[in-house]
């Protein structure tokens, strides 16, 4: 399929999606389906459930693109937020899945040849930033974000008071932000 839309920004693509432009939805899918699927797969483990999660997330984009506000954040963030929410809901309904060990085939997995180079760079950048966090903070973020555990479940699992988990989670995400975006402080951030 020709990529006539390839020169447009993500946000412009979402604006077209909000006018029910199917080729814009296809373009957005081509840009973010790999990231969306990788995230869904990491959380729900099962390939076919991960596909369902991705489809549901992109259908949510299709239905509600007119509510996307570019000033509040990037389109890519929005897409991954939709994927994450659906994956976590699913894993909480199917409690047993996350007790399974991570399959080797998904933990390894070389990047596909067609994957955009910047996605790989972004992954390496975030993984590097995670390694810079103290172990306890990294563990909290990973269990919450990829494991789908709530704060209350983490308090129980890790044997720490809920209040401690809450402040550690805040500190951990704030620290990760400061590592990823050095020089930005609360309030000074923009979408540009």
């Amino acid at each position, binding site marked *: 399929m020709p990529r006539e839309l390839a020169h447009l920004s993500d946000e412009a693509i979402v604006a077209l999606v909000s006018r029910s432009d*199917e080729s814009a939805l296809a373009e957005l*899918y081509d840009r973010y*389906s*790999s*990231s969306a*699927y*990788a*995230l869904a797969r*990491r959380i729900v483990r099962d390939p076919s459930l*991960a*596909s369902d999660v991705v*489809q549901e997330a*992109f*259908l*949510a984009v*299709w*239905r*509600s693109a*007119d*509510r996307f506000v570019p000033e509040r*954040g990037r389109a*890519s*963030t929005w897409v*991954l*937020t939709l994927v*994450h*929410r659906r994956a*976590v809901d699913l894993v909480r309904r199917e409690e047993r899945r996350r007790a399974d060990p991570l399959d080797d085939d*998904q*933990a*390894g*997995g*070389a*990047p*596909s040849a067609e*994957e955009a180079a910047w996605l*790989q760079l*972004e*992954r390496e950048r*975030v*993984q590097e930033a995670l390694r810079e966090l103290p172990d306890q903070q990294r563990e909290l973020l990973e269990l*919450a*974000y990829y494991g*789908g*555990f*709530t*704060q*209350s479940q983490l308090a129980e699992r890790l044997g720490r008071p809920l209040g401690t988990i809450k*402040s550690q*989670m*805040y500190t*951990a995400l*704030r620290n*990760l*932000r400061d590592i*990823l975006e050095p020089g*930005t402080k*609360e309030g000074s*951030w923009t*979408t540009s």
Partner: protein
Amino acid sequence: MDDELMHEQVAAYALDALEPDEERAFERHLAQCPRCQAELAELGETAASLGFAAPPASPPPELRDRLLAAARAERSNVVTLRPRWAYPVAALAAVASCAAVGLGIWAGVLDSRTSGGEALQTVPLHGASGTLVLSGGRRGALVLAGLAPTPRGKTYEAWVLLPGKALPAGLFATRSGAASVSLTRPVPHGAVVGVTLERAGGVSAPTGKPLVTSARV
């Protein structure tokens, strides 16, 4: 919970790590806290960065066509409604940013109650965001946002209000504050549609003043 502790929840919210009741409480706080809104914009980006760090995996090639076919099917549902719907959808969407009111729900409520080409009338509401939608055959549906989540042991009840009488028109509950409700009885000319909060199971006559009322139809 005091404001500082509530503020701290912004990280867990960005990570989808709140219990459902905590999440609703935080969303109520967020709606009126510019500081949390600003910080959510930042921490939401950071949480999504974790998404980009997941081990690479490629979606099955057939998923693309499956998605586009599903999207196309939804659009054909919505298109017949669009001319009259474009305004209320946009207006509701503007106020229901935290509520999961998608076009799919709207179309779903109406598809079961109206035929494709039937003219639809939309009537404004007082007391909540949303719209009363009426078909030419006087069947009605309420699409609501901004309600309080249904308290334990209670139900919302819809009414068709006519001079001197109130006719029960269906029970519903909401956790998000949004709801789409097909009314169980027709809405005659001159009636008002109202919503009250009643004890679970519903009542045969409203026990208080309606929380939500439509304009006279």
